[in-house]
Structure formats: C-alpha cells, structure tokens
C-alpha cells in the first residue's frame, strides 16, 4: 500500500428533496488500498458511490481524480476514468446470457464490429474458474439471486479499472464464495487497484480491509487504519453508542418446551428437494444452513405452498395444514420473507405504508373493506419505529429508500400480520449492525411469545448467534442437524459441502 | 320578391371522415347553390370514422343555429333523435348519400346504387356474354358500398343465372388487402372474367394484383381516384361509375334551403293541420357518370379544384 491519493472528495453534498443524503462529505482513496465504508442504513454510502460512478450528480463539492478536479457525468464517463462498480442492487439484463452480461461494458467499449460469442463464453468460463461454476451460456433470468450476485462480481472483475467499488457484494453470498472474493480483492489491490468495500459485516472489514471510513447521517465521521481500532470502535462511531452484545440470549435448555409449533413430514419436490422432515419446538429459533443453491429457500417456499408442487405433510401448532396456495398459508399464520427484496420482496413504486400493509390489507381496513389511510400509516409507523426504519415520509415510494431500509420494509411487512411462524430468508441482508441487533432481539422475543422462527442465512455467525438449532441442507436434503455445543462453523461447513457423511437428521417425528 | 338568405343565414354540410376527397366536389356544388341564393356555408363533421364523434359535431353545429344542415349520417338510426331534436329547434335537415329514413328529415339526395349495379351488370354481359366467371370485393358495414354489391349480385342471379360468382372478399377500402384478396382469387380461378368493386381504394390494389398475374379480367368499380383514373386511361380498368357529386351537393343545398323557406310553398295536403314541413322530398337521384378511356380527362379532381376554395 502506497500513500498516493488516487481519488479525493471534498465537501460533497447531495439532497433528494427534503432528504439530505450527504452533507459536506470528505473522503480519500489511496492507490492499492482496500478501503471499507461503514455506516448505518441510509447513512449515504451508496449515494456517495453513485456519485463517484456518475449515476448521480452532487449538489455541491468537488471530486479530484489524480489530483485533478473532474466531473463524472455518467457511468460511461466513469468507466473511461477507470472506475468500476458492483451495485448493491443487482442490475443485470435478464434476457441476455451470463457471458454477455459479464462483458457488457467491454462490448460497449470495444471497436469490434461483430460479436465473438465463442471467445466471450471462453473468457466468461475463465472468470468463473475462480469464482463459481455458473454456465456462462444460460440466461441470467434463470439464475438464483445469489448466483446473480456472483455474476455481478464477475462483471466487475473483468473491468479494466483503477478504482473498484463493491457495494455490499457479499450480502447474499456464503462464506466460501465470499472468501474467494476476498482473495481476488487482495490480488487486485496488490496490483495497485484501489477498492472501496461497503459492508455491514464487521468481520469482513477487519479481516480484509486496510482502512475504514465511517458515515453517519450523511456525514463523514472518521477514517481509521483498521489495524489501529476494534470493531467496537467502528460500531460506536456508526451508531453513536455502544451496542453491547450483538446476539440476544439463547433459549435456556431448561425452558425447552415439548410443544411443537411446526412439524414437516416427508416433504418432497421432484426437482428441488427430497424427504424433508423436521420440527420446530415452541420458543426455539431454527436455522437452515447450506451452500448457494442447496435448496434452503425452496424448502421454505415449499412449506408455505408458495412455489412448486409439493407432497408431504405440514402441521402447524398441532393442526394439519392443507394449503392450496400461499394465501392459505398466510391465513394460517405462516409467512415467508423473500431473499430477493427487489425482485419479490417490495413494491418499489408504491408507498412504504402500502408495502407494509400488503400481506393483509384487510387489517388496515374497516368492516366493509375500505382502507383507512390513517390506520395504514399508524401500522407502518409502529413497525417502522420498531425496526429503526429511516425515511422522510411513509408516503414515499420504497424506491427512495436505502437498500437496508428497503429490507426493513420487507421485514415489517412480515411482522404486520402477527404471524404464528415466519421463515426469514436472509433477514438481515444489507441491514446495519444496529438494526441487526434490534432485529435479532425482536426475533428472540417473538420466539419467546411462541411464534415459530426459522432463519435461513448465508452468514454463519448470524446463524450461530441467533439459532438454537441449525439444520444443514445439501443438494435438497437435510444432511444433518447441529445444536448446543455442536454448533460450530466448522461442523456446519463440513456438512454443507457434503464432505462429512450425512448424520441422521431429526428422527421422523412419530405421527 | 325573390328567394334569398337573410344576412347571417347559414347552411352547414356535415359529414363523417371529413378528410375524404369524396366530399370535395359535393361541397363545391353545395357552395355554388348557396352563393346563388346569397347564403353562407360551413363544411363540418368529424375526421374520424366514429359515430359518437359525428353526432357530437352535428350537435355542435346546432349551437350555431343554422337554417339547415345537409347531413351525411354515418348510420341511420343513431341520428333519429338528434335530427328530430334539431328540427324541433328550427334547423331543417336533409340527408345525402346515406339516409336516416325513420327520422323527420325533409329530404334525401343520393345516387341510385341499384342503377349503378344494374349498369355494371349489363356492361359486363355486353362484353362477355351471359356465361362468365366474376368476383366482387366488398366492404361490409358501409351501407352504400354494401348496397352496390348486394344489388349487383341480386341482379346477376335474377337475370343472368349462367354467370358464376367465384370470389367474394371483404377488403374494406384497403388497397393492400385488396391486392392480397385479388391475387388469391385470380389464383384460385384462372378463368375469372370480371370483377365488380364498390369503391376505388380496393380497386387500386385489385388492379395491381391482376396486372401482376397478367390475368385478363374486366374490372369495373364505383367512385374514382387519380390512380384508378390512370388505370382507366391505360385500359386496365374498363370503367368507373362515379356518382354525380356536384349534383348531389347542389340539389342537397336546394332541398335544405327550400325546407328552410317552406313558407313559399302551400301544397294541397294536411301539412298545416299536422304541422310538418311541406317540402318533403323522399328521394332525389343525383345520377352517375360512366368514366371510360374517352372521357377520363374530365374527371381529374386536382385539375377541377385548381383555383377553387375547398372550404
């Protein structure tokens, strides 16, 4: 790492109407460093990155590249200046092959008249050699959200850039893929490329980054060398207070109830998963672990009758459910929080309040089915406050929110119906530490109230921290179960990658 | 005392698809008659093929309290109520080229579609004998075109049962559709001798198809466009039957004007007691011209309009 500054930002401000997203921000990026950005949801991180990439124009302030003031008018301009960007929200062309998506920018910049699909596919294979085993010739619309994220990353890695911005690239990745990414990042940095890395996972920042800048409420708070500080310091600077314990207390062994909230027997789906049986006791938080594409999401959706044709039995609070579709599941009190918030979690162009009411608009309506605007707002305000949602007005469209705040809206939507059982697929994806703690506390208290909680997460520490018991899924089957002292990253990883012969899963509950 | 308009007495001619060139000579006749009586005229209607819009434009005409309206009602019955209301409020209504027979309109000016059809049939027989194959294009839904075709078919089957109808396609005045239909008909019937087409737009496409197939078909159609005129000159089209538009407009004005000045007329009937307008003209035939190679030169609308005001 050298000290010469490649990118310098001074006194940058940006407002969206009444919302002041950035207020006089200063920031500098040095050659060959990996510079982490931390800050609560809505602190202005993505906004700053969008400005650096020319997607947004600042209201005031200066950007200097190599010491020279520049105006970055568009992503195209940013590209010619050597700035590459992996967006927080996946932006891929669904109707186009993976290979073409990866080399879209290259195609755009090239002077070649004709496409060379063969070399494109070949080069895409090369890129993926390190990263994953996605077939470059499939259409992006057929990929799962995590694989799409990998494509986004692959896309950035092919850019010939000097500054690489990664905005929460690991939010949907598991440890394995994330580690590969960190390896590549380090190689790039060693070649003199500067990387801005945004993440809410402190571990990642402290394991992989050189410096960290903290933002709060649109202001730059501090920049430190990572080696000089502790995660606690960063969190403190971000939130303005000490969070204490990140994970709530687990369920004491003594209090374990025999009462079953959920029992799933022999759930099968021809292509996606097989012979899935498990149960969830009252007061317990259950986790699903597994690699990308293991089938965790599919199982949850199968239980809720959300997708696919599923055979098997589902019992909720001792009652056999016969669900025709997800509506029935909601009516029975069983809901599923989607992992793809932009694709199927929120209605981007509708108001926050309307989003939160979507599961059961009847709840905010009077007896003859008329929606009461004030009830709708009140419901949203209560849940919003509970989740520390940051917004200008509850009437704003969700698209005006920062990524993490959008996630909170999706979560609030689930909580709005007072469910009996919630599947949470990547519940804290993109959510800041402070809110994360809050969400974990909420989950625990819901569990204590008897609500069934099943968490699917790619972030192992989260699973370990929150869950009382974790099921490990591998290729559509439950490969094993860990709990108590057995619950270690190591054990789970082995089960998840199939390197350990499957231990007997939860014995079939006697029917 | 001669009959003439009071100052500000205005007569309106209201049509549908007002951009269609058919109306131009009609309106010229209307205007010429109006000038002779010192009357003002307005050309009005809707540019669209839309009954609701035509009714709206008709009702808006009435806001101007005209003495009379010469109306081409797009459909008969929808205009009954508006026409009757107009007459009640003192505006006389005469229809032309299409009628609203159940309304109280005082007159109806039209060319005789039956006569046109009969003429065409006889013309074919004269050239081809009584035993030939023929086809028609048509435009279902448009009453005068419909009549031209059905009358022709009725006449043929009644008088010349040996002639054979081998093709009957709807092309709705679209030359490309007419091209396609005619091409197929000519394919399916290599012996085809004659075609009768109720309007000129389809005729353009039909002739193109016949020329391309190098078929020997005798074509006749109603109305005329510059292109079909050229085809007539070149001998590709045998003849066109064109309603006498000038007479239609001229007589149309006369009928409307007389209806508005009915006080000069005191006929031997019950009109005074029953309270209807005495100038009742059930039907005026404005006649039609047969356009052939010989007289085609005189039917160039652009030449006719040279130096005339279209509005």
């Amino acid at each position, binding site marked *: 790492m050298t000290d010469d500054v490649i990118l310098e930002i001074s006194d940058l401000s940006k407002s969206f109407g009444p919302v002041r997203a950035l207020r006089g921000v200063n920031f500098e990026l040095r050659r060959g460093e990996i510079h982490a950005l931390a800050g609560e949801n809505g602190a202005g991180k993505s906004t700053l990155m969008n400005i650096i990439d020319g997607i947004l124009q600042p209201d005031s302030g200066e950007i200097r590249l190599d010491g020279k003031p520049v105006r970055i008018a568009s992503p195209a301009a940013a590209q010619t200046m050597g700035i590459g960007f992996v967006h927080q929200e996946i932006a891929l062309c669904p109707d186009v092959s993976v290979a073409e998506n990866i080399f879209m920018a290259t195609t755009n910049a090239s002077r070649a008249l004709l496409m060379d699909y063969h070399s494109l596919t070949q080069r895409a294979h090369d890129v993926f050699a390190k990263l994953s085993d996605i077939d470059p010739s499939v259409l992006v619309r057929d990929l799962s959200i995590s694989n799409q994220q990998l494509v986004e990353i692959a896309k950035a890695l092919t850019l010939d850039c000097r500054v690489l911005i990664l905005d929460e690239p690991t939010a949907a990745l598991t440890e394995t893929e994330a580690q590969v990414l960190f390896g590549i990042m380090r190689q790039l940095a060693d070649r003199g490329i500067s990387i801005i890395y945004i993440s809410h996972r402190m571990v990642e920042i402290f394991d992989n980054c050189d410096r960290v800048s903290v933002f709060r409420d649109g202001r730059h708070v501090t920049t430190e060398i990572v080696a000089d500080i502790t995660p606690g310091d960063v969190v403190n600077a971000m939130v303005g207070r000490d969070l204490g314990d990140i994970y709530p207390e687990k369920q004491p062994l003594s209090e374990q109830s025999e009462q079953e909230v959920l029992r799933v027997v022999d759930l099968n789906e021809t292509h996606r998963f097989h012979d899935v049986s498990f149960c969830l006791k009252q007061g317990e938080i259950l986790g699903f672990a597994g690699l990308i594409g293991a089938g965790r999401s599919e199982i949850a959706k199968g239980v809720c009758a959300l997708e696919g044709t599923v055979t098997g039995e589902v019992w909720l609070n001792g009652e056999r459910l016969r669900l025709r579709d997800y*509506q029935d599941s909601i009516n029975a009190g069983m809901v599923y929080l989607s992992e793809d918030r932009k694709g199927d979690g929120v209605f981007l162009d509708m108001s926050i309040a309307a989003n939160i009411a979507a599961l059961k608009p009847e709840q905010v309506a009077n007896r003859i089915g008329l929606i009461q605007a004030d009830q709708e707002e009140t419901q949203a305000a209560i849940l919003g406050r509970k989740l520390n949602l940051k917004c200008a007005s509850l009437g704003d469209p969700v698209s005006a929110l920062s990524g993490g705040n959008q996630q909170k809206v999706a979560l609030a939507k689930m909580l709005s119906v007072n469910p009996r059982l919630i599947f949470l697929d990547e519940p804290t994806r993109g959510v800041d530490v402070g809110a994360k703690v809050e969400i974990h506390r909420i989950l625990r208290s819901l569990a204590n109230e008897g609500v069934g909680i099943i968490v699917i997460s790619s972030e192992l520490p989260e699973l370990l921290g929150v869950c009382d018991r974790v099921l490990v899924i591998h290729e559509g089957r439950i490969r094993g179960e860990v709990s108590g002292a057995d619950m270690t990253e190591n054990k789970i990883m082995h089960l998840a990658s199939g390197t350990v012969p499957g231990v007997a899963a939860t014995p079939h509950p006697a029917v | 005392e001669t009959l003439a308009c009071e100052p500000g007495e205005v007569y309106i001619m209201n049509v549908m698809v007002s951009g269609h060139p058919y109306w131009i000579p009609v309106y010229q006749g209307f205007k010429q008659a109006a000038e002779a009586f010192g009357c003002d005229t307005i050309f009005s209607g809707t540019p669209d093929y839309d009954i*609701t819009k035509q009714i709206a434009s008709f009702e808006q005409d009435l806001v101007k309290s005209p003495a009379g309206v010469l109306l081409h009602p797009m459909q008969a019955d929808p205009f009954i109520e508006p026409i009757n209301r107009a007459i009640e409020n003192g505006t006389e209504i005469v229809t032309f080229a299409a009628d609203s027979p159940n309304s109280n309109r005082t007159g109806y000016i039209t060319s005789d579609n039956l006569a046109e059809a009969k003429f065409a049939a006889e013309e074919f027989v004269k050239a081809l004998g009584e035993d030939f194959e023929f086809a028609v294009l048509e435009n*279902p839904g448009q009453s005068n075109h419909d009549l031209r075709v059905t009358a022709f078919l009725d006449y043929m089957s009644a008088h010349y049962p040996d002639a054979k109808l081998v093709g009957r396609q709807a092309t709705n005045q679209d030359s490309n559709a007419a091209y396609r239909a005619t091409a197929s008909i000519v394919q399916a019937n290599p012996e085809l001798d004659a075609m009768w087409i109720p309007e000129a737009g389809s005729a353009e496409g039909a002739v193109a198809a016949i020329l391309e197939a190098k078929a020997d078909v005798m074509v006749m159609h109603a109305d005329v466009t510059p292109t079909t005129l050229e085809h007539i000159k070149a001998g590709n089209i045998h003849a066109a039957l064109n309603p006498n538009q000038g007479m239609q407009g001229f007589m149309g004005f006369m009928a409307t004007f007389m209806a508005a000045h009915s006080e000069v007329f005191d006929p031997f009937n019950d009109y005074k007691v029953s309270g209807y307008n005495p100038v009742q003209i059930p039907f005026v035939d404005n006649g039609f011209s047969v356009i052939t190679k010989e007289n085609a030169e005189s039917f160039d609308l652009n030449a006719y309009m040279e130096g005339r005001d279209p509005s």
Partner: protein
Amino acid sequence: MDNTLNMAETKQAEHAAPLFKRLIRMRETGLILIILALFVTMSFASPYFLTWVNVRAMTMAFAVEGIVVVGMTVLLISGGIDLSVGSVTALSMVIAGWLFLNGIDPWVASGLSILACTAIGAFMGFFTTRIGLHHFIVSLAVMVIARGACLLGTGGRPLGLYTLPPEFKFIGQGSIGPIPVVIIIFVVVVIAFDFMLRRTTMFRKVFYTGSNEKAAAYSGIRTKKVVFLTTTLCSALCGVAGIIYMARFGSAQPTFGLGMELNVIAAAVIGGASLNGGSGSIFGAILGAVLLSVVSSSLALLDVSVYWQDIIRGSILLTAVTIDHYLNKKRR
C-alpha cells in the same frame, strides 16, 4: 431520531394547509390545470363553447366510452391491456339487438349480452393467466373474432332497433331534469370505481399485482385471479357500454368502435396509468378522456379546416402531455 422527526414535520405541514397541499400533490392536478386552460381559451375563442348545449354535446361524446376507459384503467393497473374493447362493445350491441329482434325482452337481452361479454373477458383471462400468453396478442385475436361475430350476427348491416320500448331508450336518450341519463350513469360509474380503486382492499390488490406481480404473489395475493378478474371486468364494462350505446342510438352497428382501443388506452395513459402496470387512477383517466374529447370538439366548433384538425389535435396532445410531465416532475 431523524425519521421520527421528519415524519412529525410532514404531519404538521399536512395539517397546516391540508386541502391545498393535497391538491398540489395529486397526480391529476397538472391535467386539471391544462384542461382549465383549454376551457378558458376556448370560451374566448368561441361564444358557443360554454353554452349548455355544447357542454352537453361534448360530455355525451365521451360519456359512454368513459365507462370503457374505467375498465381499461383497472386492467392497465393490474398490468394487462385490452385491444378488443371496440369490437366487444359492438358485439354487446349486436347480441342484445339480435336477441331483441328475436322477441326477447330488451332488459333480459341486455343482461344476456353483458353476460356474454363477461364470458369473453373470462376467455381472455383464461388465455392470459392460465396459458400465459400476452394480453396484447390474446386481445388482438379476440378483437378480430368479436368483429367477425358482429358481422356474422348482422350480415354486415346495422340492426335497426327503433322499436325498442321507450323506457329502455330512456337509458340512452332520456334526461332527468336537464341532465341526460347517460351522463348520470357515467358519473356514477366513475365515482364508484374511483372510490373503490382508492379505498377498497380488493382493488388495492390490483395495484400490488400490477406493481410487481412476483412480490404480490409473495404477499399471498392470488395474482392470476386478480388479473383474470380485471380482464373480465374490462370486457363486462364494454358490455355495459354497448347496451347504453344501443339504447342511445336505437340501433346495433357491427362496425362500431373501430380504433376505440387506442383512444381508450391513450386516455388512461394521459391520466397517469402506466403501461407497465401498478399505477393509474380512474379520475386521471377520465380527465385524459375529457382532454382528448374537448380538443376534438373544440376544433369542430371553431370550424378549423379538416386538413389542419389532425395536426392541431396531435400537437395539442403532445404539448399537454409534455406540460403535464413537467408539472409532475416539479411537484415531486
């Protein structure tokens, strides 16, 4: 915290000048201003413009089509589109007229006809939601089929129905006081649907579905059912419109409504409906219809040359939409 504070502020501001604020924030305000401007200009340009007869004629010109606009708007919001509205409206007239001429009571005939149109909508709904074809292509095919059925049922000639009983014709030709029944029906339908669309949970699901069908499905909404129902509703309203037209015209015209689809969709889009679904309002769509209709009517009233009318009409449309766009941009 920031958000609580901000929220409180907004609340307060709303209370300070609630009506004015709400008006400014309304999507439709721009259109209203444009239409007002048009009215003011026109009443200077022509002394006849603001007469009752003219206003009545202008309203009658779009009132029945307005009912179709309502159906189309709901369908557009749910993410669909329907090109068959013109022919289905015509078919509604033809079926009812044909039944009437065959001795069936006109009210019963009308009911059956509306039912038939509803069935056509259900048919389209089936193809779009169950088979998964695009609305555009399904409704295009149905547009052609329904027009063919009109021709078949009438032999291409309008059915004269002046023998309809006067109490039936009253729907289309009568007035209550000075106000035509047609306009009353139109206003009732518009207000009812505008209210329902804004307020009922049922119609809220239409917005969710159109905004993001997948997210709606993930919210437990039976999106296929929603789209099926909006498709059916649109055709049913075409059926209703056809009956009113029949009563108004005293005839059933097989060629009625050619090109109506573009007009109706344009009205909804001018009024803020998105062709991608998820947004739109009945009130806005009706304002769109008003704008289109008033422009046409004004040109007719001013005796503008036919050869200029289309050019002016198109230009006004483009200008109005542009102004509306800018007004909305500012307001945001």
